[in-house]
């Protein structure tokens, strides 16, 4: 009973935070919603008795992603009146969520069972996850790092181009 009520509270946090993130006009409240959603998600992991995943979730999402996005928000200083006009925003949101539903189902059917390396372990510790990442899942792991590297290089190229332009002007 306690577990179920905790689950509902945490699910409320996650869903409410996600909805706040998408709906609010102020970027700061979006970031706050994201923070709440991530904390709720970490709480759900902790409820599944997986402390490591919960802490890693907080560390990566809150410690890195939220703070970085907050920094971006502060540098950009987006005002409500400067935002682009989106009259049918919510209709588009609902339609697009129907559009991505097949992909969601696909991901769910692929990932709702744990791989054998994780199934055998009683509790999932850092060691188990490290071993799984560097043996069975080493290919996806490397692909993801290459993807991140590409994104980083792309960001630098875009930033540098802007720099070169301003130099040419002056």
């Amino acid at each position: 009973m306690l577990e179920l009520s905790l689950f509902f509270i945490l699910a409320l946090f996650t869903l409410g935070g996600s909805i706040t993130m998408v709906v609010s006009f102020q970027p700061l409240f979006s970031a706050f919603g994201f923070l709440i959603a991530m904390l709720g998600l970490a709480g759900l992991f902790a409820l599944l008795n997986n402390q490591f995943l919960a802490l890693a979730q907080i560390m990566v999402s809150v410690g890195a992603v939220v703070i970085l996005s907050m920094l971006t928000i502060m540098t950009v200083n987006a005002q409500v009146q400067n935002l682009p006009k989106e009259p049918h925003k919510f209709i588009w949101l609902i339609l697009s969520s129907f559009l991505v539903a097949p992909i969601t189902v696909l991901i769910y059917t692929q990932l709702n069972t744990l791989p054998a390396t994780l199934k055998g372990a009683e509790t999932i510790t850092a060691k188990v996850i490290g071993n799984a990442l560097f043996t069975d899942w080493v290919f996806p792991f490397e692909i993801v790092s290459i993807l991140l590297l590409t994104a980083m290089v792309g960001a630098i190229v875009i930033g540098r181009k802007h720099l070169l332009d301003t130099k040419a002007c002056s």
Partner: protein
Amino acid sequence: MSTAAILIAVVSFVLAALLALLTIPVLVWLERRIASLIQDRLGPNRTNIFGFRLGGVVQSFADVVKLLLKEEYYPSHIKMGRWLFMLAPVITFSAALLAFMVIPFADTLVIEGEALRLQALPVSFGILWYLAIGAIGVLGVIFGGWLSHNKYALLGAARAGSMVISYELPLGLSVITFVMTYNTLDFNAMVQYQSGTFLGFLPAWGIIVQPLAGIILIISLFAETNRNPFTVAEGESEIVAGYMTEHTAMKFAMYFMGEYVAMNTASAVIITMLFGGYQLPYLSTETLTTHFTTFALAIMIVLPIFLTLFIRWMRKNNSVRKSVSSDGGRAFETKVLTVALITFGLVVEMLLLYLAFFAEEPLANALTIALFQLLVFVVKLMAFNIFFIIIRWTVPRFRYDQVQRLGWHYLLPLSLLNILVTALIIVGVGS
């Protein structure tokens, strides 16, 4: 769960909360007194309750009352998000408080075959918890600074955020080095590793086994807690009070107390990972348990000497000049404290005498050792807090670009190199 387990859990939770919260007034007092001593003056020592000054600690309680009774003022230009503006200091404060909750203050107690951790939250990923929860603290700073709609506050928040991002990397990398050395993520196991010896005769403290990573860890934690020489987020000479410019009364006090709790937590993490935690060098829990009689005798000899020295020091210093007619209750305070200290010493001596020679209670012995370890922990914690304070009042502040250069150009490559060398040594020794 047995009764003992519930009791120990409650006791360790209360202990952790007290250690985190009751140290705030003591730390504020220490900060002001040590600053005064460094600047050749006395600092707050007049505030008293019925003549009890306790060296000036009472001043901190007076400050708390003052901050509680101050006017709650809201800047009228803050139109939306007032609730988040108010919530932001609470986020910072509670994150710092929660991060303290995984520090072990004594070794695991074994009662009726059940191993009970003396740790408020029995999380076995202690260091991950500290890194995860500690990172939330800066979000309170960023929210508060952004919602103030004030250029100083915004600059302070931006500086705090960017500094946390730059110093989280060396911090995490030096933590990885320690995780590789100790082969664990658990704070208690780290302390147990450090009770051994290194090279046969040195205590296996983190700072001796991994000096470079230890220094990087200390520097990064100084930056994480926003203490001098890294106070770029609230540099008075450039951006007034930084992110807390618009916060008044209790909202300001929350930020202020959060800083001290964060400092306390950082000292606790430093002594747990680098300075043997709750253990004295060469005296592991097993050694103390097997040689309990010797240990009790040593305490019985050291305690009276220490108390005598302290009482003499207090009687000499807690007085006024001959020319001043009224001493404001100082003689009375000295008398009461002397009696209290002598009674305390006698009670401890009697208890230890009973435990050492007449009782054969392994549980009572274990509890005594846990209390001793708690005492060692508190003494080390306070020593490191004083180190933090001395650094603040002796080292000049860094400029913002110097802070960033130190993080990215020196600490980050050094910690990466350290990881490589440590990994090579571990693989070389292992194979």
